[in-house]
């Protein structure tokens, strides 16, 4: 999932300073799962913002809406009947959702309420960790299902580096060394020999180095 974390309320309040009525829009997908911008977080933030405003002697009218998916135009369209009453939109979706709302409603200011972080998985309840950087040319098949791009601090393709100690990365004793994990996994799979294969230099054009990316599926595209 795409993970996110709520911005400091002070920053959000600064964005909203000129407005007395806003539409606060959550998303039912990733940000719900990582407890950053689903229905519950929308309600909580709404309450906090209204109180913060009252404290300064003003009021803030908030209409709360949580869309099925804020990154799809079909769902963003649901805002159409409510957008006019609002001075601005505050989105609790990831950056994709914020931009989809901004694209659809060109004359309405849209502000992010969360910082979009990374593509990750939940390690345990309440803990999410980075797993994928969307490099566009997946090499998990070579590395025992553990990504050296997302999980090795140096993105080494042939690790580990000399900083690997007791299974931990040199950047912090809290961080597992991805290459140690890869080695252990290959060993468990009986694929130690694969570790000897040198992974050749990566063509980063499939990643962000090739500019903003797009997928076109001819069979589906209208």
């Amino acid at each position, binding site marked *: 999932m795409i993970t996110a974390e709520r911005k400091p*309320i002070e920053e959000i309040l600064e964005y909203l300073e000129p407005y007395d009525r806003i539409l606060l829009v959550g998303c039912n997908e990733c940000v719900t799962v990582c407890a950053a911008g689903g229905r519950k977080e929308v309600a909580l933030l709404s309450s*906090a913002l209204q109180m913060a405003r*009252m404290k300064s002697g003003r009021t803030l009218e908030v209409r709360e809406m949580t869309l099925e998916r804020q990154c799809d135009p079909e769902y963003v369209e649901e805002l159409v009947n409510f957008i006019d009453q609002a001075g601005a939109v505050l989105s609790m979706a990831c950056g994709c959702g914020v931009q989809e709302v901004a694209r659809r409603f060109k004359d309405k200011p849209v502000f992010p309420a969360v910082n979009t972080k990374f593509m990750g998985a939940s390690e345990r309840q309440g803990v999410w960790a980075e797993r994928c950087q969307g490099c566009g040319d997946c090499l998990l098949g070579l590395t025992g299902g553990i990504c050296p791009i997302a999980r090795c601090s140096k993105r080494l393709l042939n690790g580990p580096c000399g900083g690997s100690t007791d299974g931990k990365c040199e950047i912090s004793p809290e961080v597992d060394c991805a290459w140690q994990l890869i080695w252990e996994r290959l060993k468990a799979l009986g694929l130690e020999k694969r570790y000897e294969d040198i992974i050749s230099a990566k063509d980063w054009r499939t990643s962000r180095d090739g500019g903003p990316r797009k997928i076109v599926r001819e069979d589906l595209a209208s």
Partner: protein
Amino acid sequence: MDHFSPVIVAFCCHYCAYTAADMAGSMRLSYPSNVKIIRVPCSGKVSALHIMRAFQKGADGVYVAGCLEGDCHFKDGNIKAAKRVAYVKKMLDEIGIGGERVEVIRMSAGMGERFAQSAKDFTERIRKLGPNPVRAVLNQRESAGA
């Protein structure tokens, strides 16, 4: 300010604090009448939003009263409640309402005295903090006939 009588919402677990309140009653112990009790099946049922909404509607203080550690009827509801209260404290600090206005209190069903004493102590603490800052706007709204 001398006459400030704080409105306090107490979310009380059915298995401990609520029964302790009952006990306080039968022991004829007095506790401040401004403490409004809401019975919940477990302190773990109280969400961050319940607490925030209480403040938004003008409560000056909120406490969640749950079982003693290790005694939760539903295993760890009281631990969850404590984590949520800690979360709300941070949020209240962030918006300048003040995290000291919310607390977790632990007791068993037999602790009538503890119930009455905590109600008194908490009321005193909130009295010192003064009214919830959102009250001014709420009062204005009320007097405008909203």
